[in-house]
C-alpha cells in the first residue's frame, strides 16, 4: 500500500513539475504570445493565397485547411482510430439481435415522457439536424467541419432516447445495422476522396499524389475549388461531408447499443424474441 501511494505521488508531482518546467523554459514560446509562430504564419498566409497556388488549400478557414489538407494524413489516421474504437464497441457487444416485435402505435404513444416533452424533442431534433449539417457543410468557409458537425448530430439520439425510448428509434429504422451501413458509407466516401486525384491522374495520364487537394509543382491535378461560384475548397467539402456521416452514425450506433436495458440484454442472450415490455 505504501509503495503504491509513493509511486502515484511521484507520478503526480513529476508530471506537474514537467509541465511547469515546459512553460517556464518557454518550450511553447511566451504564453500568451503577441506574434504568430512561424508554422502558424505559413498556414495562415497560404491557405487562401491566390498568388501562390502551389501552396494554397482553397479554403479561407485555416483550421479546416490544416485538418484536411496540410495535415491530412494525421486526420486520416485519427479517423482510423475513431473507426477502430467504434468497431471495438460493436465487437464487445457482439450478440445476435433477434427480430424485434414492432410496437404498435398505441404502445409507442405510451412510451417515454409526456406529450409536451416529445413534441418539443421532435422540433429540437429537426433544428439539431439542420444546424449540424450547416456546421459540417460550411466547414471550408466558417468555423466547423465534419468532426464538429458529427458531434453535434450525436446529441440527437441521446435526446430521443431520453424523451421517448430507444425502441422508438429502432422502430424508425435507426438500428445497429442501418447505422453501420451509414458509417461505412462515410468511411467509403473518405477513402474515395483520398484516392480520387490518383484516379483522375490515371485517366488523364498525369502524375498525382494520394490525398492531393490543389495543384502542386509536379502534379497538375486539382479538385474544383469553386462550384457555381461557391467556394468548395476542393476535397475539403467532400471529406467534411463523409466525416460528418461517419462520426454522426458512429456515435449514434454506440448510444443505441449502450442504452439497451439490462433485462432485454439478458433476454437476447437467452435467444428470446423481445418487445418493449
Amino acid at each position, binding site marked *: 500500500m505504501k509503495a503504491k501511494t509513493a509511486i502515484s505521488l511521484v507520478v503526480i508531482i513529476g508530471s506537474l513539475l514537467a509541465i511547469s518546467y515546459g512553460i517556464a523554459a518557454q518550450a511553447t514560446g511566451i504564453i500568451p*504570445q503577441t506574434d504568430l509562430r512561424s508554422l*502558424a504564419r505559413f498556414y495562415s*498566409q497560404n491557405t487562401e493565397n491566390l498568388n501562390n497556388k502551389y501552396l494554397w488549400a482553397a479554403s479561407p478557414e485555416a*483550421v479546416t485547411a*490544416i485538418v484536411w489538407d496540410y495535415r491530412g494524413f494525421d486526420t486520416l489516421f485519427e479517423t482510423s482510430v475513431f473507426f477502430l474504437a467504434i468497431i*471495438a464497441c460493436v465487437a464487445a457487444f457482439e450478440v445476435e439481435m433477434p427480430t424485434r416485435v414492432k410496437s404498435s402505435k398505441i404502445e409507442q404513444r405510451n412510451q417515454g415522457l409526456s406529450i409536451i416533452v416529445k413534441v418539443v424533442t421532435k422540433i429540437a431534433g429537426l433544428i439539431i439536424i439542420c444546424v449540424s449539417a450547416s456546421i459540417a457543410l460550411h466547414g471550408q468557409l466558417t468555423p466547423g467541419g465534419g468532426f464538429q458537425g458529427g*458531434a453535434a448530430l450525436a446529441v440527437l439520439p441521446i435526446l430521443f432516447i431520453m424523451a421517448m425510448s430507444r425502441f422508438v428509434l429502432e422502430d424508425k429504422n435507426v438500428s445497429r445495422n442501418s447505422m453501420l451501413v451509414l458509417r461505412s458509407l462515410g468511411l467509403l466516401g473518405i477513402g474515395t476522396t483520398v484516392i480520387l486525384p490518383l484516379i483522375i491522374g490515371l485517366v488523364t495520364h498525369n502524375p498525382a499524389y494520394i490525398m492531393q487537394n490543389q495543384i502542386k509543382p509536379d502534379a497538375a491535378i486539382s479538385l474544383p475549388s469553386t462550384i457555381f461560384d461557391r467556394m468548395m475548397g476542393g476535397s475539403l467539402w467532400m471529406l467534411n461531408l463523409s466525416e460528418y456521416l461517419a462520426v454522426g452514425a458512429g456515435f449514434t450506433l454506440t448510444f443505441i447499443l449502450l442504452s439497451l436495458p439490462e433485462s432485454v440484454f439478458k433476454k437476447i442472450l437467452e435467444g428470446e424474441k423481445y418487445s418493449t415490455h
Partner: protein
Amino acid sequence: MKSIPLTETFLAVYIILSSITTLAISLYGILYKRHLIKKIIALTIFGDAGNIFATIVGFRYIFPVAPPILTTESPSAADINSFLSVAVDPVPQALVLTAIVIGMAVILFMVFLALQVFRIYGTLDTKKIAEERKRREEQ
C-alpha cells in the same frame, strides 16, 4: 517576440495554472479512485484540461484579435497581411478539434468495457472485483 509584464498577463497565467492544477487533480482521480466509472470521469477531465491548455497556447495577447478565418473572397496581399496581424494560431485548434471527438470515441469504448466487467462481476469497484476473482478461484 517581445515579453509582456506579468501583471498584464494575469488572466492567462491564471488559466494556465488552473489547467495544470486540474491535470494534477484528475491524475489523482485516475490513480486513487477505486471505482472504474470514477476513473473514466477523471480521464475525461484530464483530456479536457489538456485541450484547454493546448488552446491557450494558441492565444495571442493583442487587442483586435480574430479567429483564423479570412473574411474576404479572393484576398489580395494586403488583405492577407492585415489578417496575419490579428488572427490567432490555427494549429492548436486543428489538433484539439480532432482530439475531442477521438477522445470521446475512446471513452465510449472504455464505458463498454466497464459495462462488460459489471455484467461479469456485478460490481465496478476494483478491490471488490479482485475479491470476487479470488472467491471464484477458490470454488
